[in-house]
């Protein structure tokens, strides 16, 4: 892949404490999270290097306190990093003046928050128009645009409601609409659906996928829910104690966990649902007969895997066979799941 890098994060550190800058300079290499804590500091982000390419959906996941929210706040410079560099579209975030930072946020970034972060004294429409108002757009134009986005998230007819008059799901739609109002290139979502109950969460995920299908933004999405991550992600970064344990595609994370922690994390996952035929396809033996789609998961192919007698089944991407899938290996994944 030669896609353009949008966010590039190199050896980023975020340390909380009395004098983090000084501490980081004098810190010996290789200290663990607990060592740092023993010195009276908290490593919110610990030596993270990660790149996000244009149009990609990167899901950052981890337990609470693992530093995922801190990391995304470093990407948007809601937190100033202590060490390392983060560049967004080629600009070094930490070197931006306040004015340039505001410009960047006004034109390129949108963010959705876990508990919505809506302004209680403003109506839905006014909340959505808020970023436009801040950048000084005229009243008529921002109303027009706000109505458009409100319609996009399906809140037509509720424009004049106040946040407290809406359900949680509706409030988050307002949050999403607000973050989209300025047509950002980069979209941060910090556990946007965690505060919602499971049924609504599912519905909002579908809604979100629909929007992403239309808009194709560069997305950094935070969640602690593995199922959610698997549903949405192009790549998943798993964090623990401020550090990224592994960053890879969902299949790879499930099939080849990099560390013990990731293995434990993925243990409970139904691999058959995650692993796709494309990943299992090997170049050497193509197999014969009717091919299966690369994007089909092992579970989708369950019936075929059980009934088919071929040892190697060809896998095709856009009607072109890219390799052969070892049926026994696929069956193994299917059986492991049950």
């Amino acid at each position, binding site marked *: 892949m030669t896609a353009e890098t949008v966010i590039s994060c190199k050896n980023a550190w975020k340390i909380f404490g009395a004098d983090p800058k000084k501490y980081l300079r004098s810190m010996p290499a290789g200290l663990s999270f607990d060592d740092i804590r023993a010195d009276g500091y908290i490593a919110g982000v610990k030596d993270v290097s990660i790149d996000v390419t244009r149009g990609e959906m990167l899901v950052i996941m981890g337990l609470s306190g693992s530093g995922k929210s801190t990391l995304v706040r470093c990407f948007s410079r809601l937190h100033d990093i202590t060490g390392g560099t983060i560049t967004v579209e080629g600009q070094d975030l930490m070197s931006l003046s306040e004015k340039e930072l505001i410009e960047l946020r*006004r034109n390129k970034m949108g*963010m959705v928050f876990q508990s919505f*972060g809506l*302004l*209680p004294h403003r109506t839905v429409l006014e909340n959505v128009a808020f970023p436009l108002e801040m950048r000084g757009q005229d009243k008529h134009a921002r109303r027009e645009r706000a109505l458009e986005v409100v319609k996009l998230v399906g809140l037509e007819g509720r424009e004049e409601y106040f946040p407290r008059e809406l359900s949680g799901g509706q409030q988050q739609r307002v949050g999403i609409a607000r973050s989209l109002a300025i047509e950002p290139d980069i979209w941060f979502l910090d556990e946007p659906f965690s505060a919602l109950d499971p049924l609504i969460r599912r519905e909002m995920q579908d809604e979100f996928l629909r929007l992403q299908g239309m808009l194709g933004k560069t997305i950094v999405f935070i969640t602690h829910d593995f199922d959610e991550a698997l549903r949405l992600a192009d790549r998943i970064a798993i964090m623990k104690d401020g550090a990224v344990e592994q960053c890879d595609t969902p299949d790879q994370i499930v099939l080849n966990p990099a560390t013990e922690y990731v293995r434990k994390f993925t243990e409970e996952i139904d691999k058959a649902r995650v692993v796709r035929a494309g990943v299992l396809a090997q170049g050497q033996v193509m197999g014969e007969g009717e091919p299966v789609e690369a994007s089909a998961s092992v579970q989708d192919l369950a019936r075929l895997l059980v009934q088919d007698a071929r040892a190697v089944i060809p896998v095709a991407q856009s009607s072109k066979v890219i390799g052969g899938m070892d049926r026994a290996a696929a069956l193994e994944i299917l059986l492991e799941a049950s």
Partner: protein
Amino acid sequence: MADITSDLKADTTSPAQWSRSKWASVLLLVAVVLTTLRYGGLLPDSLHRIPEAMIPPFAAWLDVFFNFVKDDLGLLTLTRTLTEGLEWLLDITANLMFGKRRWPFIGPIPWTAVAGVAAVVGYHLGGWRMALLGAGTFIWTALIGQWTIAMETMSVLMVAAPLAFFIGLGLGILAWKYAAVNRAIKPILSVLQTLPFFTYLLPAVIFFKVGPTAGAVATTIYAIPPMILMTTLGLQKVPSEVVEAGNMSGCTKWQLLRHVYLPSARTEILVGVNQVIMLCLAMVVLTAFIGMPGLGAKLLAMMGSFKLGRSFEIGVTIVLLAVTLDRMSKAWVVRQPVHFERGTPWWRKHIVLLMCIGVFVFFCIAAQFVQVFAEIGRKQNFSQGKEIDTLIKGFLALDPVQNTTQAIRYVLNVWILNPFRDFLLSIPTPAFILLVVAFALSLGGGRPAIYAAIFFGLVALSGWWDRSVITLYSVISAVTLALLIGVPLGITAARSEKWSQRVLLACDTAQTFPSFIYLIPAIMLFGITATSVVMSILIFAMVPLTRYTIEGLRTVPPEMTEAADMAGATRMQKLMKVQLPLALPTMAVGFNQAIMFAFFMVIIAAFIGTQDLGQELQRTLAGTDLGKNFVLGICVSLMALTFDLTIMKWATERKKALGLPD
């Protein structure tokens, strides 16, 4: 006091506290020894009271300082300039409200128009009942013939309250934004909140002329501290995600404050507004002492000449105004925005404003044709002052009533109050200070004990020791009596939800009354005597005690009382072993507030005739003795602060130990 400390020693268990209580008992012992020596005639006079010669002339020093600031630094010129601006504002409201002959020469606004607007606003905020309350208050004021004096009071309030709001808001924002400002402001605020109001009044008079301007300044300063506190609190409580959302929307710092922080802190800021209004009302009534005309001055004059009927009527007016302002501003706090359906016509969205204008214009025009709509004449009002006066005095002269009040007076004075006062006065100064330090140490620990030693040491050095002790005596005896009545009342009320609600409502309402009001029933029953002083403090201090007792008992988690029930506790056992221990920290907050209220009230009671600091303070108002006024005020403040620091420290520590929320 000895009783309290020994009681508390009994239930402290941890080793740190044990050594604390050990130290406290050593101090106690030394104090007892000193006092015994004094009784035996063995203690030299110089150890009983600090000799006159050793007392530093604080007042003279302060005078030198004030004069320097006033004349050499030119503060007086500055304040006199400010006075002109303030006077201009006050003249406008005075002209509008009661027709003072000043620019803009429009007023007075007909009383019917004011009552009408109050009704519409009341309806908007709280439905028919609030409308009735709003209109009723103003109709009563007009019909009883107090319109002009009430509006004199209101015209100052209308200037002082917004001023206090804006200054408080500004300082609150600064204190929230800059830690240094916060650190500088905190101690000043706590002194300001315990400083007796007479100490606000004299500087106001000296720097801002006698009359409404000084009244407005004193009122404003008095009302600022809670506004600062509420603003800071509100801004700190804005959820971080809302702020981050503001940042991500590309807010500049100013936009963030204006569009995100301030609107999100709306509730706390409006609570601050409510407190500003109530404190302004309480203070504006008290400015009668520096010759501010209005309800307070009238009440003062009527009580002074023992005209109980008129005092009662004015009292009712003040209470009604207080309740109306309080209820309306509180209704505004809890009012949440509600959307209009799309396509609602413009007039429908602004119906309240339009109605207000409509009612106002209607009555203004009507008043041109119907004289009583504009003004109730001197002969037309319904004041029953004389009749009520005869009624009350007749009732008080009834044998059983007179016997009761006299018996209470006798028992209180001869058996309890006077002996207690004489006992306190007989304790040598060092022993007294040791007692207070022992109290602070056993309750609050080291830091409050050090403060207690410094604060009371300063009081001893001020040269007003005896008067300070008498002030303290009034406070302690009144609060103790209030405890004996208020706590059982609270416990009884807390037994049923219905009664808790009722008593809490009564306490809430009583707390909105300006403190001056509490003198009226005391004077009615006990005349202008020392008993009235204690009685008025008692009633005033009972309100927070009862209220916090109920709240403390109600916040005991239900699992705990259920556990006690299942353990087979009787009602009494449950109360003593489970509910009271858990409610105690909250009750301590009420106790603290009662003491603060008592310190406040005891100064007002100087009006009845006391021998304490308040009396001296009141005397300074007649002159320009700023130094002495400050020394006296600081004495009161230091004593109050000692209790405040100690009790609040204990309550917070205890709450933490019990795992109760703050």
